[in-house]
């Protein structure tokens, strides 16, 4: 292959004038991590509520939960990004739409909200699965003790369910982290976007994407290690 390898490229100044190419990739990494964390907060909060709703006795709550999950799970993430970023401001009242468009860092907020809502539908499914995986007797025992539904969830069902779904939630978090790259289509300068612009400026395609790949692997390994630690930490002694 007629390719001019140059691994020293990371220490060259990037044309944006704010530092080297390595700095550029690292700033992308920071955006990736910040976006993923913020989106995860939304995803975990909404996902838990919706997941619980799907297991409640109330028909209306179940219907809402099902509707939410099917809506956000079945539309491709890329399309959702475009809907939030380009379509939402047009359907809102004009003043709101204009405010939204002029928001500084609009791609970041949009990406966080979009990714949060999308991942929430997946978290909800796992929360539901975790609750339903518990023996039915647990819910009944809660009722027999005179606990209200809310108390049964708080003190009996959820503490067990969350422990069961911790491993798949870790995968979900990793997905969430990698899904941030979809936000490059709405102009978020995260890691993949930075790697793309680096190859475009320097024409060192393979170096740029290799560096991005390595960075993704490193943060994912950190997450996996931390999740493993958390799992051991919260495990109920003698539970397995």
């Amino acid at each position, binding site marked *: *292959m*007629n*390719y*001019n*390898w*140059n*691994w020293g490229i990371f220490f060259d100044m990037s*044309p*944006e*004038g704010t530092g080297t190419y390595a700095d550029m990739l690292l700033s992308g990494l920071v955006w990736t991590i910040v976006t993923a964390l913020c989106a995860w907060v939304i995803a975990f909060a909404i996902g838990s509520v919706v997941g619980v709703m799907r297991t409640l006795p109330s028909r209306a709550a179940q219907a809402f939960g099902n509707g939410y999950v099917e809506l956000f799970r079945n539309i491709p993430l890329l399309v959702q990004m475009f809907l939030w970023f*380009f379509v939402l*401001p*047009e359907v809102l009242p004009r003043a709101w739409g*204009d405010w939204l*468009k*002029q928001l*500084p860092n*609009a*791609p970041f907020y949009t990406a966080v909200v979009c990714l949060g809502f999308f991942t929430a539908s997946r978290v909800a499914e796992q929360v539901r699965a975790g609750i339903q995986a518990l023996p039915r007797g647990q819910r009944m025992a809660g009722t027999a003790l005179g606990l209200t539904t809310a108390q049964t969830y708080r003190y009996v069902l959820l503490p067990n369910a969350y422990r069961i779904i911790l491993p798949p939630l870790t995968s979900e978090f990793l997905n969430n982290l990698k899904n941030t790259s979809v936000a*490059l*289509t*709405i*102009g978020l*300068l995260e890691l993949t*976007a930075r790697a*793309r*612009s680096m*190859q*475009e*400026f*320097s*024409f*060192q*395609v*393979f170096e740029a994407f290799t560096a991005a790949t390595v960075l993704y692997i490193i943060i994912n390994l950190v997450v996996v290690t931390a999740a493993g630690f958390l799992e051991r930490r919260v495990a109920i002694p003698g539970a397995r």
Partner: protein
Amino acid sequence: MRLRRLVPVLLAGLAALPASAQELTGTLKKIKDTGAITLGYRDSSVPFSYLDGDQKPVGYAMDICYKVVDAVKAHLKLDKLETKLNPVTSATRIPLIANGTVDLECGSTTNNVDRQKQVAFTNTHFLTASRFVAKKASNVTKFDDLKGKTVVSTSGTTNIRQINEYNTANKLGLTILPAKDHAEAFLMVETGRAVAFVMDDVLLASLAAGSKEPDAYVISKDAISKPEPYGIMLRKDDAPFKKVVDDATAAFYRSPEGKTTYDKWFTKPIPPRNINLNLPMDEALKKAFATPSDSPDPAMY
């Protein structure tokens, strides 16, 4: 690093192969052996290289490439030369040129010094400068008018880098949004997310001409760069092939056909929607056609 150390070994290995009758090397040898040449095209670089209504790649750069193919065919004295077409994007064009999938990239790639470390360019076929397009209603015509406003440019282009530099140098306090591609950047101006889109003027002209209301847009009078050359890209360090391509393009630009082809794409309605870019050839390009050059230096033009 290890790869780089391998290169001399590989080269020595190649040199040891028996030389063919005409001692063809590199791309020319490959074309002769396979009886095929592969052109890389872009899907939306209007009017240089894009898909028409029948999903067939057409454009100004494609026309030039077909001339080069004829010249290669004549040079190698082949009766038949198959022309393969391969789509490329801004991210895939370098690897595909480097690994030999594509022999010529026919599009709107800016020829600059950094890029010449990785690939070679043939004679310049177009010159472009960075300007912006904005809605007439927003009353901006000069870069200074943009002070404090939000502008958009396509990520990873030389233009976004120029507007960044210009912004820093002139303290305009711009918010510069990167967009994934030209169409999306233009959409940001159309929907009001950004006041202006900074890009090569020719691309702006084609986007505005193809929009819903071509008359609602205005292109800035001043530019923030000297005219930059576009070139057709080929593999680096392949002098015999580059010579054939350079000779073919130089002859084509000097002939009246060069001007006719330019006019066909820039001053007449073009497919698929019969828009007219209305960009007559300027003095700089006339000069570049009279004395073809592959220099990456804007000052040369």
